[in-house]
């Protein structure tokens, strides 16, 4: 049974992939639509089936097939053959041959391209069909269907609309108004962004083309105008995030593809080969190549089923977890003050601007008595804690701590330690106290562990902690932008940001007693008794599961999935799949639980819009956020005291003794942990 489901999915997914959607129902509908031209439909289906058979033959892994990734090119090839020849035994044999070749070519190209993180798109299809059409010039034994294609039943529409619809249909080898309109409606239902991009990409391309060739009508009749649609969708929505900037990039891409389409069609027409998707492939691959190599910021790193979902996932991530992955903990405990911030007036300049200096203040001063001795300074002798987990790659602590007022101009950095974080970047801390290092090069250090004491060595006018992130693990390496993963200011917990100059920051130290309560292991299950208005209703069980991407989630009996992660400093939920449920509420009630016990603290979290709003409203907000991302920012205030996390939605309790959440309460509903 499961095998059959997998097979059906493998057949249907490629259809939706052609529209960059990932949904088997879309696939099913598209399959139906293709039957407006039975020859195309049957040949396409054969293409998919033959590919799956071939994959079985060479014992290809099922999981690859399920993604539909290696199959959609064969589908296109199959449809291409069906478009050209009527189904017959010989054409079927041709499809079988071409499918196997396309599949192998897809795999090969993907392996080569993935080195540079670029997609193969429908390049294998372009190549294979090129060969087939060239070869078919000799195949008089096959019945051409080209004449039939033009005469199928259709409705009449003004050229300006029918040009667009037919182009859209051509993506599935169905150049008719009806097919085009049906596909368009499908797109509109699943993604407004795709719809807008398709429309604007098409008409922008047509406009450019008409100016170049001098005829608007002729431009509308161009059979290869669907390339504009594909370029626009791919560049603003699929591979790049749907944002304003990418909208402009997409239009530039469309303009380029206009020129490529004409150029290629002139060359190809000599040999009677259709251009198909070659202009789209070239344009998009070139764009993706450069943007991926240069770490373009609005690149869509996690392609989800729709552009809306990709954008929502991206916005949710940057609002909740910050834009940079270079995250440090504060390198001390207690409350310190920012002495120099990024790009500051004294020494944090140029390539060294991404650094922070901290001093300790009491009653507004960094020292007591007259500040004549290093020991008068509150910072002197304080423990320095590791800001990351990682290996010590370089360190020194033989330099003396300067007399106040003198600095060591030769050994600027003074005593220092460089740690290579587990995430790959390096952290350097300077001006350590002489002989205070507790580690040596090669040691592994956990974040928050004590590494040394604050001193006054190097170019340091008074005892302070200097910290910077670097690309390289050498002393004096250029600095890299970073943020502090968490700190407290006035009882408010901030995540993934940096404090301003002269601000006081209170460091967060991981309370392992909280993290251990949330250390969920695969197959753990937690049973709760549900009460409504204090009346017992039923029992529910949440179990810990893992998907094929090694993502962990809580699952209830209805199959709703709540994805969670337990990182070094906090436990958080980040994604939910399913309908209305207790798990969905749990996401809202405790989107993150910081491992902090510093009295009662407040913090703000930004929940994904789909969690807070109805379907229609979320769709509207998601669409608007392509124009203004702040629309997506839905602020919720939380309070946490180490035992209870509360908000306007309700409360969730942890217990010091047992794993998991002991009480979940919202509205009139209470879930009590059953032990």
């Amino acid at each position, binding site marked *: 049974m499961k095998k059959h489901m997998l097979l059906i999915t493998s057949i249907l997914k490629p259809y939706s992939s052609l529209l960059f959607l990932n949904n088997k129902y879309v696939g099913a509908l598209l399959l139906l639509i293709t039957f407006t031209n039975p020859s195309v439909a049957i040949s396409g289906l054969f293409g998919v089936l033959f590919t799956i058979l071939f994959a079985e033959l060479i014992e290809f892994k099922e999981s690859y097939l399920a993604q539909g990734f290696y199959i959609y090119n064969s589908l296109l090839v199959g449809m291409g053959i069906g478009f050209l020849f009527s189904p017959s035994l010989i054409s079927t044999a041709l499809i079988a041959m071409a499918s196997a070749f396309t599949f192998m070519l897809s795999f090969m190209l993907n392996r080569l391209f993935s080195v540079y993180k670029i997609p193969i798109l429908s390049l294998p299809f372009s190549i294979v069909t090129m060969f087939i059409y060239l070869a078919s010039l000799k195949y008089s034994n096959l019945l051409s269907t080209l004449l039939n294609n033009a005469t199928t039943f259709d409705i009449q529409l003004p050229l300006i609309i029918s040009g667009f619809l037919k182009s859209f249909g051509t993506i599935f080898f169905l150049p008719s108004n009806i097919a085009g309109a049906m596909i368009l409606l499908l797109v509109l239902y699943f993604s407004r962004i795709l719809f807008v991009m398709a429309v604007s990409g098409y008409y922008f391309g047509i406009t450019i083309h008409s100016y170049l060739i001098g005829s608007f009508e002729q431009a509308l009749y161009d059979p290869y105008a669907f390339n504009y649609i594909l370029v626009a969708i791919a560049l603003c929505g699929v591979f790049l995030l749907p944002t304003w900037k990418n909208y402009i990039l997409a239009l530039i891409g469309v303009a380029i593809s206009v020129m490529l389409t004409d150029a290629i069609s002139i060359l190809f027409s000599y040999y009677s080969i259709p251009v198909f998707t070659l202009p789209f492939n070239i344009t998009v691959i070139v764009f993706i190549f450069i943007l991926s190599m240069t770490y373009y910021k609005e690149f869509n790193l996690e392609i989800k089923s729709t552009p809306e979902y990709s954008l929502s996932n991206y916005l949710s991530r940057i609002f909740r977890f910050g834009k940079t992955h270079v995250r440090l903990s504060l390198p001390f405990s207690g409350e310190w003050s920012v002495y120099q911030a990024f790009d500051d007036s004294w020494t944090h300049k140029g390539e060294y601007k991404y650094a922070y200096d901290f001093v300790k203040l009491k009653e507004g001063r960094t020292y007591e008595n007259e500040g004549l001795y290093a*020991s008068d300074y509150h910072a002197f002798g304080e423990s320095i804690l590791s800001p990351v987990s990682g290996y010590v790659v370089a360190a020194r602590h033989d330099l003396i701590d*300067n007399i106040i007022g003198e600095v060591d101009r030769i050994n600027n950095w003074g005593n220092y330690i460089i740690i290579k974080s587990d995430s790959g970047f390096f952290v350097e801390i300077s001006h350590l106290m002489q002989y205070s290092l507790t580690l040596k090069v090669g040691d592994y250090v956990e974040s928050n562990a*004590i590494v040394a004491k604050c001193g006054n060595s190097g170019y340091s006018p008074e005892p302070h902690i200097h910290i910077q992130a670097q690309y390289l693990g050498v002393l004096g390496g250029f600095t890299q932008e970073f943020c502090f993963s968490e700190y407290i200011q006035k009882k408010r917990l901030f995540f993934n940001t940096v404090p301003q100059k002269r601000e006081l920051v209170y460091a967060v130290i991981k309370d392992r007693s*909280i993290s251990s309560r949330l250390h969920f292991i695969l197959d753990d299950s937690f049973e709760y008794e549900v009460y409504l208005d204090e009346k017992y209703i039923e029992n529910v069980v949440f179990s810990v599961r893992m998907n094929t991407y090694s993502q962990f989630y809580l699952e209830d009996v209805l199959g709703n999935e709540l994805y969670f992660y337990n990182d070094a400093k906090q436990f958080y939920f980040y994604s939910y799949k399913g309908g209305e449920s207790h798990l969905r509420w749990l996401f809202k009630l405790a989107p993150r639980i910081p491992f902090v016990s*510093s009295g009662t603290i407040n913090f703000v979290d930004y929940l994904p819009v789909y969690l807070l709003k109805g379907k229609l409203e979320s769709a509207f907000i998601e669409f608007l956020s392509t124009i203004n991302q702040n629309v997506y920012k839905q602020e919720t205030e939380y309070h946490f005291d180490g035992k209870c996390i509360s908000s306007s939605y309700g409360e969730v309790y942890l217990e010091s003794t047992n794993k998991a959440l002991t009480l979940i309460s919202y509205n009139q509903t209470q879930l009590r942990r059953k032990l």
Partner: protein
Amino acid sequence: MSKLTYEKPTINKIDFVMASKYGSPIHTQKIRTEIDGISVNELTEKFGSPIFVFSEKKMEELYNNLYSAFSSRYSDVQFGWSYKTNYLNEICKVFHRLGSCAEVVSEFEYQKARALGIEGKDIIFNGPYKPYADLKIAVQEGAKIHVDNLFELDDLEKIATELDIVISLAIRINMDIGVYPQWSRFGFNYENGDAYEAIERMYASKKMKLVGIHSHIGTFMLDANAYRNATTKIMQLKEQVERDFKSEIAYIDLGGGFASKSNLKGIYQSTDVVIPTPDDYAEAITNVIYDLNKSEKLPKLYLETGRALIDEAGYLLTTVHGYKRFPDGKKGYILDAGVNLLYTSTWYNFNIETDRHYEGENEPSLLNGPLCMNIDIIEENIALPPLNRGTVLSISPVGAYNYTQAMQFIRYKPAAVLIDRDGKARYIKEVDDLSTVNYKEI
């Protein structure tokens, strides 16, 4: 300009010490003009001299620093105020207000804590000598009793029989933690199995059960690693007991012994260099608990820190009564406070600070107390500028042990002042008089 007073000329050898990394000792004077905003001269004028001065603000700061170092890493932590460190009522009240329970080591301290309104369950009763009658009261009031020896265990069994209850107890253990001298006088030894036998004995009687394990590894511990070792052994014993006796050890108690920023004699580095930070102690202890905890539940962590919470908050202000020039040229000052008030002078070099800047070169000086005893020397060799009669010297840190161990000897025991959080000074104990000394004499 007033006429300069005549001073007999002398020739002094001045130790020329190269400027160290902390500056030059020759031209610098240590000065303390005020404590928490109140001038030291005003304090002595208003409250008399000598006088002990305690800063509530500093106490709070020390408490919060140490407490947050632990609580930020381990949420279930409870401090117990070590009464013997300083049991002036107002001082105890400050720590109780901050959240400490009481840690007492005698029936007297127990009574003092009860008189301050502390409930039995919030009192940890330690110590090798617990009289039977008082032990029984403590049991009845639900105090946390930390057993020190087998005789005490016999007493407790008898009390349990008399009261017909099962007593929940904690055991004090001692062990080798790699530090010399090893404190082995209190409690039962861990390595030789005494501790385990005592626990067996408890369960065999069926009248007692173990709920806590306590150790106190020493005092002024300069190596946080010692606590790592101690916690390791406590956690090992905890696991053993929980497994063998199917019981739950609800709490562990690491005692005290954290160093304050005092200059121990024989150590010449700055206190910032040698004294572990609160983070050092907290990390050492909490990491081991997390790593070695085998039961579902994490134990509550008790600490009985005294010195590290009060020492730096206490000052003794004393006034120069006169001076002499000794035959060897050294200058000797006579102060109104002596070693009978400064019990810790045996092992500390105090910070001695003058009330203002004085003209003249620093010269080697000797500080004498008022006692007519040859041993009454507070500092044998200290570089001071020429001081006048009436100069107020601040001696610190003296918050821990000095007041409780100060002795009424030759002179009356001095008063104590607390500067509260609002910066207002008030008596928390007045100076003794003849009737105090004669009280209860027959």
